[in-house]
């Protein structure tokens, strides 16, 4: 996993729960906390942080990921404003992930493993999003989507139609956009 995820997590935790909370998490996970966006770190550490946080806050790992995705979006905007420029809606921003955001990430970090989302127009005007990754971070995707909606001042309803965490082969999510 790219170091940026750990940086975002640290910022999100420190911002909401304070420096000590992050130190506590580091102690539970057994990490020295040295993360930089230029580095790569074991995927399992993300899992460890999520589980530790879930245990500490008494929430499910999916809830933790959703919270993190929501909290990370303003931080991403602060750090990479160029990805938000030119978009006026959550929908357009989400659709640019495959074609703009991830290719840009790969320019800077050629080794990064970025997921590919399959987007399809839903009959009700919403968006169907397919996702398949051994990391099974569909809840993070939901958090990012909701965070983006907040950034654009819109509302979304994110529904898991199929989920790898529930034994499905891949995830299929429905995103309904409000005004």
């Amino acid at each position: 996993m790219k170091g940026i995820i750990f940086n975002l997590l640290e910022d999100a935790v420190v911002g909401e729960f304070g420096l000590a909370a992050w130190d506590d998490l580091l102690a539970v996970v057994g990490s020295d906390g040295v993360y930089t966006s230029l580095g790569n770190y074991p995927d399992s550490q993300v899992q460890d942080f999520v589980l530790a946080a879930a245990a500490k806050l008494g929430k499910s790992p999916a809830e933790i990921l959703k919270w993190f995705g929501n909290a990370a979006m303003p931080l991403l905007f602060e750090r990479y404003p160029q990805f938000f420029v030119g978009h006026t809606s959550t929908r357009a921003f989400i659709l640019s992930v495959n074609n703009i955001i991830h290719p840009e990430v790969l320019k800077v970090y050629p080794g990064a493993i970025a997921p590919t989302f399959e987007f399809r127009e839903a009959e009700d005007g919403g968006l169907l999003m397919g996702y398949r990754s051994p990391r099974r971070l569909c809840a993070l995707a939901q958090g990012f989507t909701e965070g983006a909606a907040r950034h654009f001042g819109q509302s979304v309803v994110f529904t898991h139609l199929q989920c790898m965490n529930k034994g499905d082969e891949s995830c299929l999510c429905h995103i309904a956009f409000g005004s």
Partner: protein
Amino acid sequence: MTLRESNSADDYSFCVRYVRERKARLAAESIAEQGLRQLYQSKQLLELVGSIAIAANESSSIEETLRFAITRICVTTGWQVGHVYLVSSDLRLQAVPTSIWYGAEGVKLAEFRAQSETMNFAAGHGLPGRVLAAGLPALIPDVATDGNFPRAAAAVRCGLTSAFAFPVLAGTEVVAVLEFFVNDGAVPDDYFLGLMAQIGAQLGRVVERSRTQERLFHEAFHDPLTGLPNRAMLLDRLSRAMARHQRNPEARFAILFIDLDRFKVVNDSLGHHAGDELLLGAAARLSAVLRETDIIARCHDCKSGERGTLARLGGDEFVVLLEDLRDTVEAARVAIRLQRAIAAPIHIGTSQLSITASIGIASSDTSYESPGDALRDADAAMYRAKACGKAQYQVFDSSMHRQAMHRLDLESSLRCALEQKEFLLHYQPIVNCSTGAIQGFEALLRWSRPGFGIVAPGAFLDVAEETGLVFPLGLWALEEACATARHWHTQFPGHSRLVMSVNLSPNQFAQPQLVTDIRRVLDHSGLDPALLNLEITESATFGDFERANEILTQLRALGVELSIDDFGTGFSSLSYLHRFPLQHLKVDRSFISRMGTDSESLAIVRTIIRLARDLHLQVTAEGVETALQAERLQELGCDYAQGFLYSKPVTREDAESLLRFGRKSSQVPALTH
């Protein structure tokens, strides 16, 4: 980010430091990321340049390479539209649009494309014109506000906002212009434009290579002197014409084999440069006839216009291939027009030359297996035309094939004959008209051809001239005659002033080393030069009087005597007679033989003898056969005579008998005087 409230001053100071160090880390990461992004982009662009260089090296098609290039450039850089212009220099330098485009998915290009493809851009005009004029990349950040972008309205309607273009350069010449458009206002930097210039240079190599290939191809199928198609291309076109005739017997063709008469004499006497000029002049005239013919035929009947190919096979041989002929008579008509065009006087340097052409025609009336066969038959017909007195045309018939085979046989036998020592000289006495005493001999070439007996030069001299064999043969005859004369000089002291006459052919006379050769032969034989008489015909001096005079003067300086042979049959320009350093005139046998029956011939002989006397030249009558002729010549004051009345040409042994006994060893006395 914000931190939750802190409880103490220490905590506060710690938090401030935390925030500061976090910012420092973010700044460092940002710098590193920017560097990585630039590195990535450079790598992508270098790969782009590399892939286009590879494509350019491997390409055989300019269009395909340009299409590949604009596609790769657009895909790599994100520019949405690419378009190629080729530069035309036919009338004036301008960028001409091609149908080579790249359009990214979703770009609605139709209107812009349609407008672009109707516009040519002169140097300086519009985006392609700017690149064409400067030979450098050009950039338009906003097409809507640029003053020199005529397609702005259509571009804006198609959503295109920015443009750049760069030249494809072959050396320093702009051969194509590549233009690109995008809708997001991205402005390429100098590094990017520099790379595009490199791509332009790579693509230019394809054009350069293609031009080299075209040049090689052209050289392989064209004659370097005249630029006309050569034998290879003629054979190719001929085989196509034959195939067409096979499919459709109405599609007749004919080939006209054209050979310039006496070209070799001009080439040898006036030099190769003059020869080349003559060939260029002839090629231009022949081409002009074919162009006119083509136009005339089209005007009369658009459906069956004649089509002609003029090729040069080498030397003075040209071939015209006529296609879509109505009948062979058409070919003969063209032959006559070609001959007329060639016959008009032509100026080469200071000389005015009149040259003629012999033409042989072979047509699809004879069914041919191969183009080589058709060419061979036209060649044979051309030889027949030459044999019929030059400036003629002949249509091939099968008897010519036999003659051609005979000629080939003769040519190959002749080539061996000199090596096999099959040549010999016969000697015909020249007598003093007053005393009847032998004054000298004319050496005459004979060929003892196995299976044919003794062959006179008339049967082989033409072939010897055409093959160039006449030079070694002439030299051999000269050496042999001089050696014989030297031998007789010591053997027959009573005949101390015996003169040996040797003929020089026009081609020999035109040889640059003639004087040197003769001096060497004289030195080698030890013969008194005054005892050698060189006979040249009037035609040998044709073309360049000054040069002929110079050669004759040099020969005379060697001490040899000079005769004009066959006087009265050529163009007999009296003006040269008194200027050339001559000693003798030989009156042609035709006047002598008709002297008894034809008063005009008698008058001519009388006039020639009187003229010679006035010019202090001695006269020899050729072909004297009767006592009456001899008597008449003596009365007219002719100095010398030769002919059957005195003796046929005889072998060296018989000539020695004549000198020794006044008659040949094997015969009753032949000399009556």
